[in-house]
């Protein structure tokens, strides 16, 4: 049994165990415990990515998901401060059953596809020097595949435009969020004052509004 296989079983089993712990009723009653189990799952997945030579993806998984996204989850959970008795028990609706059936169908199809792709081979060698998956040769193979260097090269050559466009998208989202959430509601040569019931939305009185143009710094 190679080291890789042992690691695979440890990480895969860990991911499944944490995922189960996230949903189990006695753990899941406290949302923070569920969130922590999710962090465990994400870490195990990051390890699996590293085993698949996707080094960058593995690092991003930890930085973005286990780091940023989970902090946000925890923040929201603590903000809501749900008490155990407020959490409704899970009820099965037709929609949920249908979603489950479709999920199982896709899962089954994925298993079939993976089995087919493996070509019935006894084991699939995924070490970097191998370029063969299920009989299909991939020119270029795993030469540097998944490393930061290789991903960076792709991002700045072939996929330069989508990459740069994503930065425009983030800018648009940031500008939009600021406009909708932080812009003070003073009126630019408005003939009528704002409706009274909405005055509470304005975060400053009229006199101070001129200095509040770009939100709080």
């Amino acid at each position, binding site marked *: 049994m190679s080291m890789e296989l042992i690691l695979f079983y440890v990480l895969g089993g860990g991911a499944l165990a944490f995922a189960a712990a996230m949903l189990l009723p006695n753990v899941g009653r406290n949302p923070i415990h569920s969130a922590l189990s999710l962090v465990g799952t994400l870490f195990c997945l990051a390890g699996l990515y590293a085993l698949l030579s996707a080094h960058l993806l593995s690092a991003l998984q930890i930085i973005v998901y286990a780091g940023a996204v989970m902090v946000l989850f925890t923040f929201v959970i603590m903000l809501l401060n749900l008490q155990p008795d407020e959490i409704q028990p899970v009820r099965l609706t037709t929609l949920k059953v249908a979603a489950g059936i479709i999920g199982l169908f896709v899962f089954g199809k994925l298993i079939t596809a993976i089995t087919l792709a493996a070509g019935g081979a006894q084991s699939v060698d995924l070490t970097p020097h191998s370029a063969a998956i299920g009989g299909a040769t991939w020119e270029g193979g795993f030469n540097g595949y998944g490393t930061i260097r290789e991903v960076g090269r792709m991002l700045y050559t072939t996929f330069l435009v989508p990459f740069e466009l994503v930065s425009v998208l983030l800018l648009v989202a940031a500008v939009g969020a600021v406009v*909708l959430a932080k812009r003070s509601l003073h009126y630019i040569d408005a003939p009528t004052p704002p409706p009274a019931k909405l005055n509470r939305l304005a975060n400053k009185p009229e006199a101070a509004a001129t200095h509040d143009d770009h939100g709080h710094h």
Partner: protein
Amino acid sequence: MLHDLVLTAPLLILLFAALFTLVVDAFLPSSANRSFWGYFGAAASAASVLAAAGLWKFGGALEMHTTAFSHQLSMGPYSLFFIALTGICAMVTHLSSPKYMSEHGSGWGEYYALLHFAAFGMGAMVAAESLLTLFVGLEIMSMAIYVLVAIKRTSQASVEAGMKYFIMGSVASAFLLYGMAFLYGLSGSTGYLEISLALAKPGVNTLWLALAVLLTSAAFLFKVAAVPFHMWTPDAYEGAPTPITGLMSSAVKAAGFAALLKFLYACLGGPAMSSLHAQVPALFATIAVVTMTVGNLLALTQKSAKRTLAYSSIAHAGYLLLGCVAFVADPNLPGYQQPTGAVPFYLVGYAFASLAGFSALTVLGKGGEERTDEEQIIGLGRNYPFAGAVLALAMISLAGVPPTLGFFGKLQLARDVLGVEGGKYLPYIIILVLNSVVSAYYYLRITVWVYMRPEPKQTPEYIRETSLQWAMGIAAVGILLVGILPQRALQLGARGVASIRTPAALQSLRYELAKPGAQPVAQPVAQPVAQPLAKAAEAPAPVEAKPAAEN
């Protein structure tokens, strides 16, 4: 590199206009009047349109090939046509905004910057040659439009509309991504051309392909407000500021259809979908007739003109979807004709008519109020003759009364679709004709409100502003000009459609459809197509598999 920048100039102008607006606006005193950004925005949009026209006219003479940045964007006639169209829509929206937006307390500099961003996103999604660029472009446009819909923050209707649009649009984006993932899984690539070639090989799983087509089409159908996905339309159109409603029903719709057609034609069309050729045209035709019928019937029952036009935009999405049938038809059947410029032409007509209609309704937004019911419109023809005339012209054009643009557009659509499968879709065209007869009722009802009702006792106040009058004027001239000279616009549209980079069009160049049995990923599909720049270093050329030491 310079070549890429020159080719994408129409888009870069919009991007830099947006950044300029954002940065300069931050340094203006907050009490300053922001109306000049409307004129600046119109000028920048006009510059973008001119750049697109210049590329169209001189790009060929300079022997420029049409794709930029490693085939992520194509700036051929098709993209330029729609970039110019959305640019004109953005220009009219900029001009109709200043007074209305400041009366409604939202005339911030960011508003104009977001308009530029929206136009930029539309250009990117129309020019996209790969799924990634398409998706990111679509999201840039959508994000900007979500915010613009909700920008009247003191109006509950506006915020609610923005929220609805945002949530449902996000679900549609998820559909699109899911479908794209299936396409990538089936083809191993994100480029339209590569996908098309990979799907043309035998042995593609029909089930997954059908799922991919359904999921991606659903997302586009949401964007263009076709029937199973039209629920957001009336609320979003009514709640949004009227200039933005005009932009949504003209530019967003045009960009959505342009991207959908290109995607269907270049990525899934031709041999790629050969296993689905029996079903997909019928599916589109069915959705089309249901959409137009539902849109028209619901429009009949509306009281507000803005809401009526929202349902009318659903109906027009139906007419246009029928035109899409020609793009997904089986090219192997006898009597197959290439699709002509009918859909782009119809989009031009519809864009001008709805811009004229909504910019005329903008005059009713005086004093932060927003009501476009019968009482407000009555007397418009007498008290504000110009706005009344533009509104009436827009309604006549939308109704498709013969000498106008709407009539020629429907005629061309019908002609295009009749050619598919030996007139199989004749019943659908008859439904289209019946629908346009029904729609004449509610369009002409608005015209009657404008001119033929006794005037109320007190005259309502209107927004009277030079730039808004320019906006109405440009839209009205657009209707008349294209109505008088339809052939020219039709030719431009046809040239655009003919320039879409389909495998059939490119077969003679460098690509060849793979022989059966060839390995999917081993094909040199990542090579440049037409007139390649010597960019071997940039192309992800297949590297020999060598025993790698790095780990």
